[in-house]
């Protein structure tokens, strides 16, 4: 059984990626939750925290939306370094990064238990369909 970490009310996980999805920077909350040091994350592909329970279609929706220049929101189950997981409500913005280049800014906060339960079920169904 994988260990779930539940975000507290004030958790605010922020990361920046370039247009290919490679991490440019991640804040302390992100690093702490994902159990990586910021240096391990910088330069890594963002799917370093991708959880196998996430359906591909969810990320396809994400990329399709942000590539059009729109804001994407959604519920994501992420993996920690030690093999655990945590649920977030993510908002992804097309942005100009802290380095002044084009990229994406991802802000995540706690998802409520109802929201988690609903999407857990939904993603399981989607995964089953993808197989």
């Amino acid at each position, binding site marked *: 059984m994988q260990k779930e970490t539940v975000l507290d009310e004030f958790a605010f996980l922020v990361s920046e990626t370039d247009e290919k999805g490679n991490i440019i*920077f991640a804040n302390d909350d992100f690093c702490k939750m994902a159990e990586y040091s910021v240096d391990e994350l910088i330069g890594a592909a963002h799917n370093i925290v991708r959880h196998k329970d996430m359906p591909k279609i969810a990320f396809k929706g994400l990329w399709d939306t942000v590539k059009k220049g729109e804001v994407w*929101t959604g519920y994501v189950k992420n993996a920690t370094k030690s093999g655990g997981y945590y649920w977030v409500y993510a*908002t992804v913005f097309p942005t100009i990064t802290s*380095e002044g280049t084009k990229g994406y*800014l*991802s802000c995540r906060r706690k998802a*409520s238990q109802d*929201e988690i339960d609903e999407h857990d079920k939904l993603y399981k169904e989607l995964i089953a369909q993808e197989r």
Partner: protein
Amino acid sequence: MFLHTPTKTRILINMLLTQIGFAIISIVAILSDYKIAAIIAINIIFGLVVAYTNYSAMKRIVGGIERIKKYLDDLMDFVFFRSNRITKAQFIKNDDIGFILKELNKYVDKFDTMRKDDMHVLGEVVIALNKVSQGIYTSKIHSNTNNFMINALKKVVNEMLSTTSENMEELVGIVDKYTQQDYRTQMKINPILKGKMLITMQRINQLGAELNDNAKLNLRNGEHLEKNSITMNQSVENLASKANEQAASLEQTAAALEEITSITKNNTQNASKMASLSKDVKESVILGEKLAHKTATSMDEINEKVESINEAINVIDQIAFQTNILSLNAAVEAATAGEAGKGFAVVAQEVRNLANRSSDAAKEIKNLVENATQKTNEGKKISDEMSQGYDNLNQLISQTIDIIQNVSVASQEQLTGIEQINHAVSMLDKVTQENANEANNVANIANETLQMAQLLVKDAKSKKVS
């Protein structure tokens, strides 16, 4: 029925229906001549109509309020971040409730947009400030929001980032220059600066000025040191060569002294040999003296014996005289006896000849003895003189021995003195060699000092100063 009718109209319709009802009841009552049944029937009909319209209006209003209440609850959860999503109102009717729901929907859209915009700005702020914690000041918040509070935050964060970044650039620039040993410039300090940043910049400027002064001072000192080092180097080299010369001279001195020592030792040995030889000579002289005495005594004894010989010769001489007289007597007797005494006369003649020869021999011996006596006396005299000479010699030898002893003692003292000198010279030699070594060491050090001074000057010259 009346799905899109506003609430006001509904109530008005209900009122009108009620009034119409009352009017119809009255009319029916008058026209039917107050037939109870007709009045009741109309009452029931209008009661049912009004009840329906009232119920329908109530259901719509109360249901709408319930819907609004639910919507507001959802909205509260959304606004206060208890949930992340909200379902907007659908199937909106064109009445008051519908209007409120439409308004709420608009509000939700606006709020959602603002919330996303705010989150975008805040996300950037979080990234930027997290980078600030790591020492990166170059970030900037790019996204915008209509929320004036978040906008104020964005503005102030951007201002902070931009001024801090400028300050950092100034600091990095100047520290870079100082690192490359260029102390010519100072930072321009932004007049708005206060607190630790101001202190830091002022101190770094001060540090730069001091580094500049130090570099100049170092160059001056270095050049001075270099000059002095060169002089010192020459002096020390001189000193070292002198010390080496001194050491060489001392070595020669030591060698000469060694020779003198050996000569002196030889002298001492010779003096003691002389002393012992003198003793032998003295003993020989004493022996000679004794022998001279003995010779004198022997001469006296010879003289005595010669006296005895002389007496004996006198006896022989008397005997010869008497023999001669006897021979004469015999010749007289023989002549008397004639022929018979002829032979005897020959013998008497022969005896007479012998007596003469004895007398002659005695005379000759006497002469010889006299001669011998004379020689003996001379011998005695000579041996006396000899004895005296020996005495003299003895005295002289004693004096010589004294002198030799003096010489021996003096030589011994000289040897001791020379040994002391030797010791002193070898000490001096040692010290001189140590000095020479020290001088060489000092020469090395002086050389190193010069090299260091040259390095210092080179280093100081490589620095750019104003």
